[in-house]
Every structure is written in C-alpha cells, then in structure tokens.
C-alpha cells in the first residue's frame, strides 16, 4: 500500500516583523518533513523595502521546488482552487490579510497559525515589536488554530523565550521562526491526526497592539531614554528611528539608556564627550547614549566616527 504525503497549503511570507528579512525556516522545515505543499498564498509577491521593490524570499523557494505561488486580492477569490487541492490543513505565518471562516473551513484540520507572542498577549500585527516596546522579560511563540476573530483561536502549544533587553528585532524574528519550525516538526503530525488538543485562550487577559506608522520613526526626545532605546530596537529596519543632530538628519541604529542627566539641557539637547567619542541626547528622563547611527545618505558609523566627522557642526548648534 502507498499513501500520499499530507497535503498542506502555506499562507504568508514569514516576515513576522516589519523591516526584517526571513530565511523561511518554517516552510523549509515543512518541505524537509516531506509534506506536499500544494500552494503558497501570499499577500504580495513583492515587498516594498526602503526605496526599492524586491521579490519575496519565499518566491524563490516556490520556484526552486515547483510550488504554485498565488497572490489573490482576497483569499475568497481562490476558494475553489484551494478546495480542488483537497488539502488536509494550512499553515499560516505572517499572511497580513484577514482569512474568513469560509476559507478556514476548507481545511479539515484547520489553519495552523505560527504567532510570535505568548497569546493572549500581543494579539495583532506587531507582536514582536510590541514585546520589545513593552520591555517584556519574556515572549515566545504560539501555535494557534486560526479563528474568525483575529489571533483569538485556541492554542496547541507555546514556547517561552527569555528577553534580556538587548535583542534586535531581526535576531528575535530569526529565533522565533526557528522555534516555530521545530514546534511544527514535532506537533503537526499529531495535529493532522487530531491527537493534539488546542486550549481556548483567556480572552479577558488579551492585549492588542495597533500598527506601527511611519510617524513613529521620528524620535520624540520628550519620552524617557529607556523607552527610546526600546523604540530604536523595535523600529529597526522599518520605520527606523530618525532625528536631527546639528542640523543633520540621522537614523539611530543602536543606543543605550542611562537614568542620569549630566547637563541641564532641555530634552533634545546634546551631551558630547569628544575625547572618548560619546554622543548623548538628553531626554525627559535620563540620557540616551547613541552607539551607532547612520547620517542620511551615508554609511552606518559609530558615535566616535560621527563626532570626528561632524563634531564642528554639533558644537555650533
């Protein structure tokens, strides 16, 4: 007797955080585990990066493995096509569109969502960013059965990840996708056989995050230094954290916050220690020491390099 590999539709592009790249670890694991990926459904086949349009990483995998790539305006537009694949389940990682119940119901074992937070906390489109912004000491990954209400479906399993407050968004995204791939490797066979129970979430404890806007990328020095340090990590890649230093527009890429203020300057005022190359900005509470930054149109550099290059301008303002 022979059997077919389990037939799975993959939704999403695995960009689980804004402005990050992905190695598509989840899809690669499913292919490695010999599931028959009948189609990959994405929001867009291209991504709008900073000033350039690029092909999605996942499009290359689709091509390499001869998997059909679909990018419908709405998932219902391909309902019949999905039904014809006779899939057993779908796996969804960062699809970016609402999936209606009529589509979920096509899959006998449902749609299994890889969500990068410890649900019911951080429902919504920016779970990873918001864990950094909130200064969480732990976050994690949830395997959830997709439901009509956003991120409110029952949860099969969670893995907790400790945070030390220095993680970059890219690093955290990589780690969480790796965990998601490992969890699916372990649990998907049981989920497909209906041997893994999904437990309802505690909806009372749910938190929701709204989208990041481009406006969030302008540093507001009237916020505490600690908060700004988190924003710089959470907004890395997109929308990034911009400010003007000595009349020069820069993007801050790495920083650390200290509670003390060494000058009486108002928020936004500079505290430069030229001989050791330290570049501080006074905030409403504490000082934000900029470690690395990128003047617009230039390469990323250290604070010391920046002071050597632009020190004169900084002193004059």
């Amino acid at each position, binding site marked *: *007797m*022979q*059997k*077919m*590999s389990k*037939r799975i539709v993959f939704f999403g592009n695995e960009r689980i955080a804004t402005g990050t790249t992905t190695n598509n670890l989840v899809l690669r694991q499913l292919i490695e585990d*010999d599931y*028959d990926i*009948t189609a990959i459904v994405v929001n867009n086949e291209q991504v709008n990066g900073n000033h350039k349009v690029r092909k999605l990483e996942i499009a290359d995998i689709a091509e390499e493995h*001869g998997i*059909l790539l679909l990018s419908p305006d709405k998932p219902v537009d391909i309902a019949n096509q999905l039904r*014809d*694949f*006779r899939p057993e389940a779908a796996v969804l990682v960062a699809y970016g569109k609402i999936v209606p119940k009529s589509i979920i119901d096509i899959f006998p074992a449902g749609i299994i969502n890889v969500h990068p937070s410890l649900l019911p906390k951080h429902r919504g489109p920016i779970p990873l960013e918001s864990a950094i912004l909130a200064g969480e000491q732990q976050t994690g990954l949830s395997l959830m059965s997709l439901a009509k209400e956003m991120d409110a479906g029952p949860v099969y399993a969670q893995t907790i990840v400790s945070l030390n407050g220095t993680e970059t968004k890219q690093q955290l995204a990589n780690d969480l996708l790796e965990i998601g791939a490992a969890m699916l490797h372990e649990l998907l*066979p049981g989920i497909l*056989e209906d041997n893994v129970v999904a437990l309802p979430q505690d909806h009372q404890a749910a938190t929701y995050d709204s989208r990041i806007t481009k406006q969030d990328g302008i540093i507001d020095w009237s916020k505490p230094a600690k908060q700004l340090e988190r924003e710089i990590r959470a907004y890395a890649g997109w929308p990034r954290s911009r400010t003007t230093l000595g009349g020069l527009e820069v993007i801050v890429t790495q920083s650390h916050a200290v509670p003390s203020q060494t000058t009486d300057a108002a928020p936004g005022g500079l505290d430069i220690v030229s001989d050791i190359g330290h570049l501080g900005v006074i905030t409403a509470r504490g000082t934000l020491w900029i470690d690395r930054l990128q003047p617009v149109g230039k390469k990323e550099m250290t604070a010391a390099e920046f002071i050597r290059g632009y020190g004169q301008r900084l002193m004059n303002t």
Partner: protein
Amino acid sequence: MGYTVTDMTKDDIITLPHPSLRTKSQRVGVISDEILQIVEGMKTATLDWEASREHEVGVALAAVQVDKLYRIVVVRNNCEDKNDHEFTVLINPEITKSEGKLVEDFEGCLSVKDIYGKVPRHEKVRVKALDVKGKPFRITAEGFLARVFQHEIDHTNGIVFIDRIKDSPEAFFRLDKDGKLEELNYAEDVQANSLLW
C-alpha cells in the same frame, strides 16, 4: 548454496491487470531461505519504488505484488518518516477481530497505477502472524495502521482495494504529476478501464 542475493526493484512489482493480483496466496509452511529472500526483496522493491516518487510513501507490500503467491506482508515501521527504512514482517497474517466503525480515507496501491480510492475500513483490527523466526505474535492496530493491515491482508486473499469501492462512483481519484488530486470520471476512467477489472 541455493540462492544468489539479488535485490528486487520497483520493476519487480506487478500491476493490474496481472492475474496473480486476484489470486489467493498460499500459507508459508517452512520459513526457508527462499522465503527470507522474498521478504528482503519486498523491502528493497518498496524502497526503490518510493525513491521514484516525490510526494508518496511506500508503506507496505504483500508478496503477491512481487508475483510470489505466499501469505507474506511487510509494513513500514514509521510511515511518517521516509528516512526510516525499517519494516515489520508478517508471515501468514490473519485478522482475528475487526472493531469500530467504518472510516473512509484515501489509499493507493503500488500495483494499481495512478489511482487513489476513498476506501471504507474498520477503525481497529487485531492481527496475528508469525515473525521471520516463525514465532507467533499479535498486533492491535488503530487508525492508519489498521487500514494498512486490512489492505495488505486483502492482497493475500486476492482482493485489490478497488474491488472494495467498485460501486462507489465518487471514491476514485488520481494524483497527477503536480501533486493535484482529481476526481476520476467514474464511467470513463474507472468502469470502462479494462486494465482494472
């Protein structure tokens, strides 16, 4: 020395309309070198067949499928892992009890080209058989494994899975090269297909 070891390949697997597939196999009396040779050949033939398929797993084989009319079945130990090449061997297997309701699910057969059928099978079966040393053992199987045993023990009795669904117009499917599973046209592709009946 009686036999030369020559591994069987997928080309040793017979397909419909080969008449042996509708013939009852005989019980194994003595587990001779010839029998052990057939057992090994059944394993290599299954793995060789699987290596030629992208999204299919060869989960079991009956001796009749390599045109040896003995009641011998080999079943993959781990049907979920293509890299696990271990088999369990059942000599003179028999279903002693069938339990649970009838469940329909897809199954295919290395001896029935390109067709998958939705076949009703019991949820749970108890099987008794001899191992390769001639020692009796019993297995209780549920779910997919129960299906595998029912399919293979049918082979030892000259029954092919399509015989169980021959009157079900909506039970026949084909898996095409792109992995698409299509329902077959019952009148044209099934009933009128002289290879099958």
